[in-house]
């Protein structure tokens, strides 16, 4: 049989040390809901597996002093869903994370794994991008931070340097009147891969949009931050023309593929539809916040 070594260190330093020493022959294991599937399919054959779930920093959720959140990269969707406050502050991010798979999958799947798997269709990624989340990574040369949108490099590839591990996500504090939302389109009702995913995070002051970020998934090799869509919304009262302009920006940003789940034309069109609907939900939430 192929020999696979398995390590479950209790500290990040140990994990990084072992991961870096293996020089690309190793894989990080969070929930394993992507990794194990890929190993079964013979797509990856790691010589060493470094399980990060015993490292406290990677499985904990903290509210930061300024009112933001720090989420360990290996926190499961189920645990995040049970946090008493997170879902109230970031309902869109939470619904994106909780859309991943089924109840069983939720018990394992993590936002860190979702991001590092670097699928263009990863559900939590557009919502994290919209939320302006920043990740902390640690490698042999120490720690650094980068925006979520900078992590994926292409399907299945990240911009993490050799030996680097994604440690946590930091979400900024929320101003008053802020709301976020995530919607995805899948052909069947659950257990499917997004054909388009759209995350919107915006702030309203007296009915006027003062800040807006739009993340768009499954329409390009990586999940996109659609700056133009955000710009189209900011300064407007989210009137039909502004929303249509944002939808047009989303459609323009699309560089999708044709596959069994949806054609290029379909994905492009749906990006606009989802933008409109997601903005509606986020604005509703912002109005109540």
């Amino acid at each position, binding site marked *: 049989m192929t020999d696979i070594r398995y390590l479950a260190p209790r500290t990040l330093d140990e994990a990084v040390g072992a991961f870096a020493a293996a020089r690309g022959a190793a894989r990080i294991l969070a929930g394993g809901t992507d990794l194990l599937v890929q190993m079964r399919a013979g797509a990856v054959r790691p010589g060493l597996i470094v399980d990060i779930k015993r490292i406290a920093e990677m499985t904990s959720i903290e509210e930061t002093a300024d009112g933001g959140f720090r989420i360990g990269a290996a926190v499961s969707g189920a645990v995040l869903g049970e946090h008493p406050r997170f879902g109230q502050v970031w309902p869109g991010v939470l619904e994106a994370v909780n859309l991943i798979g089924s109840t069983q999958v939720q018990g394992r799947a993590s936002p860190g794994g979702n991001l590092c798997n670097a699928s263009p269709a990863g559900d939590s990624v557009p919502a994290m991008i919209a939320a302006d989340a920043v990740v902390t990574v640690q490698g042999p040369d120490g720690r650094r931070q980068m925006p979520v949108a900078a992590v994926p490099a292409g399907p299945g590839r990240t911009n993490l340097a050799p030996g680097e591990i994604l440690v946590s996500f930091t979400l900024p504090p929320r101003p008053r009147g802020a709301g976020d939302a995530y919607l995805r389109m899948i052909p069947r009702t*659950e257990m499917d891969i997004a054909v388009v995913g759209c995350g919107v995070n915006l702030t309203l002051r007296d009915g006027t949009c003062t800040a807006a970020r739009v993340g768009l998934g499954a329409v390009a090799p990586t999940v996109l931050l659609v700056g133009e869509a955000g710009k189209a919304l900011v300064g407007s009262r989210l009137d039909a023309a502004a929303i249509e302009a944002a939808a047009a920006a989303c459609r323009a940003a699309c560089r999708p593929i044709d596959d069994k789940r949806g054609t290029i034309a379909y994905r492009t069109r749906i990006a606009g*539809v989802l933008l409109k609907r997601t903005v509606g939900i986020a604005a509703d939430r912002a109005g109540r916040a």
Partner: protein
Amino acid sequence: MLKEPHVGAPRSRVDGRAKVTGEAKYAAEFPAPGLAHGHVVSGAIARGRITGIDTTAACAVPGVLEVFTHENRPRTAWFDYKHRDEVAPPGSPFRPLYDETILYSGQPVALVVAEDSGTARHAASLVRVEYEAGAHETDLLRAREDAYVPPKRRSGISPPPKPRGDAVAALAEAPLRVEAEYRIATEHHNPMEMHATTVVWEGGGKLTVHDKIQGVLNSQGYICNVFGLSKEDVRVVSPFVGGAFGSGLRPQYQLFLAVMAALALKRSVRVVLTRDQMFTFSHRPETINQVALGAAADGMLRAIRHDAIGATSRFEDHQEVVVNWSGLLYHCDNVELGYKLAQLDIHTPADMRAPGAPLGVFALESAMDELADKAGIDPLELRLKNYAETDENEGKPYTSKELRAAYRLGAERFGWSRRSAAPRSMREGRELVGWGLASGVWEAQMQQTSARAVLTADGRLEVATATADIGTGTYTILAQIAADAFGLPMESVTVRIGDSSLPKSPIEGGSWTAASAGSAVQAACHAVRETLFRHARGAEGSPLGNADLDHVAFVDGRIVLAADPDRGIGLIEAMRAGGAERIEHEQTASPDKANQKRYSSYTHSAIFAEVRVDEELGVLRVTCIVTAVAAGKILNPKTARSQVIGGVVWGMGMALEEETLADHRLGRFMNHNLAEYHVPVNADVHDIDVIFVEEQDSRTSPIGVKGLGEIGIVGTAAAIANAIHHATGKRIRDLPITLDKLLERPPAERAR
């Protein structure tokens, strides 16, 4: 008061506990000392030949016992007819590892046997195979040009009936015409349990084989023929089957490989296929239907033409009943039906739940909906107008047919009368709502079956027949029938099935098992009853003295006078009186030949579907299905309902999701796993309401049963497609109706 019988009452599965606790053993779960494990190497090209196999690296892995290929396999029966199983279609069956020829993609080319399954799987990845590829064809749209009428008919499958009237002329003259092509994609069975075989080497040349099969006798016969063994030395024991839906009717290649390896290595061997490999044998054939309906302005049918082309392999003519339903469901004097096959470089298709029927009925019932639209007649009214009172294909009356009642009860429950006729006229919120209906039909059959009943002096009853329970509830209904024969609680009955040493039974398929095994069990129980009754009458001071069997009832473990239930004698007392420790009888139940000649027997259904379409996204949901089923006597409304629901959900899959896509450049199925081959998930399934229509049928089987396994799927896809048309105004004639087809008019949509 006599107690309520078990038959007809909702009863939970008698094997339910064993299944959920893991006590029920499936083919891959039987232990054996010294068990070796085989892993199959699947071929990579669709057609051609193997030019070399290098097994050196695989053989070098510690723990590997042998790598079998066509070059070193032990000798087996040479002639292909020896490989024909009970239900093989005409042709030359696939013989695993027979020679270097590659007939289809995914064909097994080697079996690696090792001490454990992980080693076997790893070593299998080291087998290197070189091929010389030949030109292949897997595209039915191209192969249809070469379609042919199968020269030899498949046993049990009726070819299309002879034409009646003059359909061509009647069509030409008809004021209303619908002509269109309807297609259904290739589908796979996808049972939860993988195909697997455990061969237990018993020593002394004897084998016990646990195979995933819908008929243990079929596997036994196959093994004996292929390997030249005698039936005394081969016992096939498969008490539980984790779903099969037709994929387990014929012995599959893992059986051959496991037996071959066990005989060669003289030890026990298990071969379990992977989910990917579940896509390398047996599927529902891709089928193209052309339907033409001609009608008078009032909707009365004047002409029906239905021609179908089904895919088959290069080596066997797999046939199904696809078009005959179109001559059956409606009264029409001018009917012409045709059925052809087209060969592709694929494995031979296999029967899958209601083989043929949902394909042809989708086409016919879609076309009827189109006709209703053209005629401006309510689709239900159109069907009632053209109702067939007799089987016009064969010119015979029906044993029973309560389809009219099914239409009425289904329509009432669904609220059909509130439907507004025009497409796109019903809406709720941002969704369009559509209501559609279709009819379903499936043949009702009984097959000759034997069963044994044994009553022992401890008051326990055992009934046994070789049949299978593939999850349908056979254990449960047999326990009900047997318990009722003696007025016993079901807990006093043990049902044994799935063992080739038991009385003969045909494969479990065609919806005939309840009627066949049920009748056989009842006959065996009645024979035991007669003997018991003689003992009872002979008992000293027996209150039954002069009564005959017709005048007594079996209640609560006693035989009592029907007219005076207080007077009677206990079963155990009666046995004691006769000095009998056990009473055993074997009986064979056969269909009534005279009835079969005179009558036609079918089950029917009326299916009503509601869909909701989010048009901006092209997403649709099937929010409600009401299906009213007329299937004779319902033995157990609980398990029966589950059967129908299962069929309906599969019909939803057929309508919206299921499709095995081939990459024609490689000649290979692409979506060979459950992530990419979509079946409905729980969230896709909303309300399903099953109505069983009263139907008395004394001619199909002695116990009044017509069968239920398949009817649930027939017509369901058509009802959904019709509802989609009603919701959106779009007629999709190409299953599955995926969202791209709903949004952009597909090229396949070619109404002429």
